[in-house]
Structures are given as C-alpha cells and as structure tokens.
C-alpha cells in the first residue's frame, strides 16, 4: 500500500482534538506535525489531544521527539496527549523514547568575587608551576653541563636550524625595512633643523638598543614561541609527556632544556644580525636621500654607539630568549584534555611573551636612563 503524502487534519469533539496524521513523520516532514501540535497547545479550552497514526507511514526519531515534546508541554498544564492507531513499527519507535527525567538543577552560577578568586588561585598555581619549571630546567641544565645527564643526540642542533636558521631571512628583511623606515622618518625631522647628518647616530642607537632586540624577539615569539607551545601542547594531549614520565625520562631534560639552550644561542645571534642589517638599511636611505657616503654614515654610528650600548641590546636579547622559551614550554606543558587547549596554550604563549618582552624592555630602559 502506498503511503499517503505527509499532512495532518484536525477533528474536534468537544474539548478533545483528534489529529489525523498522514504519511511519513520523519526528519524532513516532522515540522508539519510539530506546527499542528504547537497550535493545539495554545488552545486553552482543549483538555485532550489524540494523535491518530492509523494513516501514518514511517515514524523516525524526529517524529517521536515531536510527539514526546508536545505530550510533555500539554502535561505541564494538566492536559493529555494520547496516541491511537499505532502499528507494531510505530510502537517500537515510541518504545525507544525514554521517560522524561527533569534535569538536575544547574549548580549556582559563580559570583563575581568567586570568579576573581578562582582567577587569582589559578594564577598562583600557574606561577608555582612556572617556578618549578625554571628550577627544574636549571637543575637539568646543570646535570647536562656537568655530564651527569645527556640531551637527546643532535637535539640542540636541530632546534637551532628550525628556530634560528629558518628565521634568518624574515628577521633580516624586517630589520632592513625597519632601518630604512627609521632613517626616512628621522631624516625628514632632522633636516628641518639642518641636523640630517645625525641620521647615522639615530639609526645606530635605535637599532642597537631597541629595534634590533625587540624586532627579533617579536618575530621569534610568533614563530618559535607559538611553535613550542603547540608542539608541547599536542604532546601533552597525546599523552607523550606522560609516556616520558612513565619511562623515567625527565620531560624537562628531554624537551625543555634543548629548546631553551637553542633559544639562548639563537636570539642574541639573530639580534646581532638584526642590528647590523638595520643599520645597513639606514645607510642606504642616507645615501639616497642625504647623499651621505657609507663611510661617513658608519663613522657616525661608531662614534655614537658604544660597547655598553651593545651590551645593553645583547643582554636584553638573552632575557627575551628565556621569556619566549619559558612561556612556550610552560603553557604548552599545561595544556590538557583536548585540541582547543593546544590553541589556547599557543595564543597565550604569544600574548604572554610579547607582554613580558615589552615590560622587561621598559624596565631595562628605565634602569639605564636612571643610571
């Protein structure tokens, strides 16, 4: 027998409404019955709704859900929904619908004070874990230096290549452009006072003390810090960190120390490169705009930038390296549970690194200025 086209018709008998259902009540057609039953629920004078399924075809989970929902809504206002004309297949489908159990009340939402308290406690735990990581990294590094423990073969070299050598082009290009921009901007202002010749002093000082270390740190944060957090986070989610611990291998020695060692080497090296390439960029602009020869420009740079300025810039780069490494490893190792925690760890590693790099830079600038 062919199943009739889906549809409903309503028959009224006093305070009772009988809904005659025709055709399949499945995912694609259940909305019709849902609309009909919703309209009947709004009729306050009705005491009982009967859903007659004698002419109904297949009923799937959507059909059952529509009827169950209407039944529950009617019951709330003391009214009834009955089923009639069911065949065996309909009965089997409705047998799958479980008794409705009122969900347990959600626990009381946190107050503002509790949320702040939770954040402070979370921050405290994170700081304690960071402190432990720093101490453990120092201890493991000491063990490696004194040859009481060893690092995975070739690990520092491979990290230096992936974190450092591969970043040479981007750091170099950005530094060159930054040196050019600084020279352009400076020359325009300095020429107003007939002081264009000081462009070399300005580019040299800004690249060595600020832009070189800062530019390199920010590029490495985006490239390397994020990669470290994502890699360690993924290892944490995949239980690889637990596997190391279970084997009796220190995850800090195996994973953190090689990365920190590589960063400690890479960051100052790239910073030094960035300083010189930035100065070269400024030199090009000075030659084009001021017609100042490279030798004159270089003499201005050397005359202004002293050894202490280099120590200042390179010293900062060591601190920046440790900030990037610790933020990446700490937040990566703290990831847990699922893929989204890896994304969160990566984002946080970048934000935290940049924040502390700027804070440390400000502290350095203040100390140097005051002294």
């Amino acid at each position, binding site marked *: 027998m062919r199943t009739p086209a889906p549809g409903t018709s309503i028959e009224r008998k006093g305070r009772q409404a009988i809904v005659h259902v025709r055709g399949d009540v*499945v*995912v*694609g057609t*259940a*909305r019709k019955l*849902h609309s009909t039953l919703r309209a009947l629920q709004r009729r306050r004078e009705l005491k009982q709704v009967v859903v007659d399924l004698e002419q109904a075809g297949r009923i*799937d*989970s*959507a059909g*059952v*859900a*529509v009827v*169950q*929902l209407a039944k529950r809504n009617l019951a709330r206002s003391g009214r009834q929904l009955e089923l009639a004309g069911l065949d065996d*297949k309909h009965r*089997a*489908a409705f*047998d*799958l*619908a*479980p008794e*409705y*159990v009122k*969900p*347990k009340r959600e626990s009381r939402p946190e107050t503002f004070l509790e949320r702040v308290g939770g954040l402070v406690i979370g921050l405290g735990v994170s700081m304690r874990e960071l402190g432990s990581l720093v101490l453990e990294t120092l201890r493991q590094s000491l063990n490696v230096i004194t040859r009481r423990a060893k690092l995975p073969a070739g690990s520092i070299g491979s990290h230096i290549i992936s974190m450092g050598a591969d970043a040479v082009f981007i750091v170099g290009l950005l530094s060159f452009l930054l040196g050019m921009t600084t020279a352009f901007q400076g020359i325009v202002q300095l020429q107003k006072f007939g002081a264009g010749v000081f462009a070399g002093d300005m580019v040299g000082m800004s690249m060595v003390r600020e832009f070189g270390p800062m530019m390199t740190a920010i590029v490495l944060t985006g490239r390397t810090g994020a990669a470290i957090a994502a890699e360690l986070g993924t290892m944490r989610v995949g239980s690889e960190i637990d596997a190391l611990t279970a084997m009796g291998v220190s995850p800090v020695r195996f994973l953190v120390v090689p990365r920190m060692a590589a960063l400690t080497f890479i960051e100052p090296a790239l910073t030094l490169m960035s300083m010189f390439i930035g100065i070269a960029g400024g030199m090009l602009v000075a030659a084009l705009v001021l017609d100042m020869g490279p030798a004159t420009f270089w003499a201005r740079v050397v005359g202004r930038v002293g050894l202490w300025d280099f120590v200042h810039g390179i010293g900062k780069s060591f601190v920046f390296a440790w900030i990037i490494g610790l933020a990446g490893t700490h937040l990566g190792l703290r990831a*847990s*549970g*699922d*893929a*989204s925690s890896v994304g969160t760890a990566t984002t946080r590693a970048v934000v935290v690194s940049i924040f502390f790099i700027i804070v440390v830079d400000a502290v350095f600038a203040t100390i140097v200025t005051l002294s």
Partner: protein
Amino acid sequence: MTPILTACDVSIGYDRPVLEHVSFEVQRGEIVTLLGGSGSGKSTMLRVLAGLLPPLSGEVCLFGESLYELPPEARAQLLQRIGFAFQQDALFSSMTIEDNVGLPLRELTKLPDSIVAEMVRMRLAVVGLEGLGRRMPSQLSGGQRKRAALARASILDPELIFADEPTAGLDPVVAAGIDETLVQFRDVLGMTVLVVSHELESIRATADRAVMFANKTIVATGTLDDLEQSQNKAVFQFFHARDA
C-alpha cells in the same frame, strides 16, 4: 531485493593494495561484521565503503548508486543517509556531548531547536548516556565516548551505520551495552549495520553474517556458525587460536 551496499571487484589500499578484487553485498536490515587480523584491510575497507577513501579499482554501490562515480554534491547527499562511528570516537573536543550529537541535525535539517534537543536527549538515553549531555568529551570515559560517537552516528536515523571497532578496548559490560545498542538500531530503528571488529564475543552477540579478510582477499563469508566450522586455515586460526 537490491542490496543496500555492494562492493564489486574492489581493490583497496594506500600505497599498495591490502585487498584485491573482493566482492560482497550487504542486505537491508542485517548486521554484517568485517573480520580479519590486524592489517588485513578491514578498517580501510570500511572507509572505502563509506565514501572516505576511493578504491584503487572496482565499484562501490551504495543504495544502488555507484558511490565514486557521483559528482561531489550528489555523493554528499547520499552520505547523509549513512552514519559512521569512528574507532577513535572523533568527537569534537570543544563541544559538549549534546552539541556533538546534535550537530548533524543542526547542520543538515531545519528542525527547531526544541525538537533537536528532544531527539538528542532520546538518543543519549538509548546509548545509556542520559544526563551526561552537558559534559565535554574529555570528561567522559573511553566507553562513554564511544557510545556518544554511536549516538552522533545514528541521530539522523540513517539507513546504514558503519562502526569501526566499536567495542575495542572496553570492558565486557560496556562492550555488551554497545552490542545491545547496535542490535536495537537494527531491530527497532530498522538500520543496517556494518561493523569492523575482532572481538569474538561482540561478533557472536550481534552479527547476522560475517565477511573475513586474510591474504589480501575474502577467505570466508556466511553466518558465524558457517565461519566457525570453516576448515580454511586463516579462519580456523582466527576462531580457535585460544583453543590450542
């Protein structure tokens, strides 16, 4: 009666074939288990049959249509009539269980939210997860996650469900619950179920028929009784390895 699924002279594999020139059918309303040792190609076959990996050669017919001959849109439409429960559950870790299970309904139908919520509640109850819908996948045990994956695979009442090792690594009680759910899908919802498994207890509890792969081909097909009495060496070893 036209089979719901047919593999015709199919060779499958990634770099090199793991199964060559195999043919079999699945009829509507039966539970068929694909058997075989590790690396025999049963999970790969499931992916091929579900439209996730083209065969190296041969034809897969799903609901009478040649699956890999169809244009992408038509294939996607056809695949909405199947459900797939992955071995590693493949739940979205950033969504609650309710959102995971309701995802196909929200994405593929125009049902109102109230009906979607009711259907999700019902299906979670069927798989024994009632009351756990607000939890995240990471807050569930392995067995609960597998049941949530089955709930998601079956939420659209598909005509055919693929389940890749649904009971692997689970304790016997949880495994029996999942077996019962698969049988319920067939008996109550009229679904056809194609399962990959090597858990003998589960196979005995659920399968109407089994197809066994070994040595890059089908070495036996039939009811469990047929297979258990087979004198084929690979089949005999599979069923009686622990008897010796």
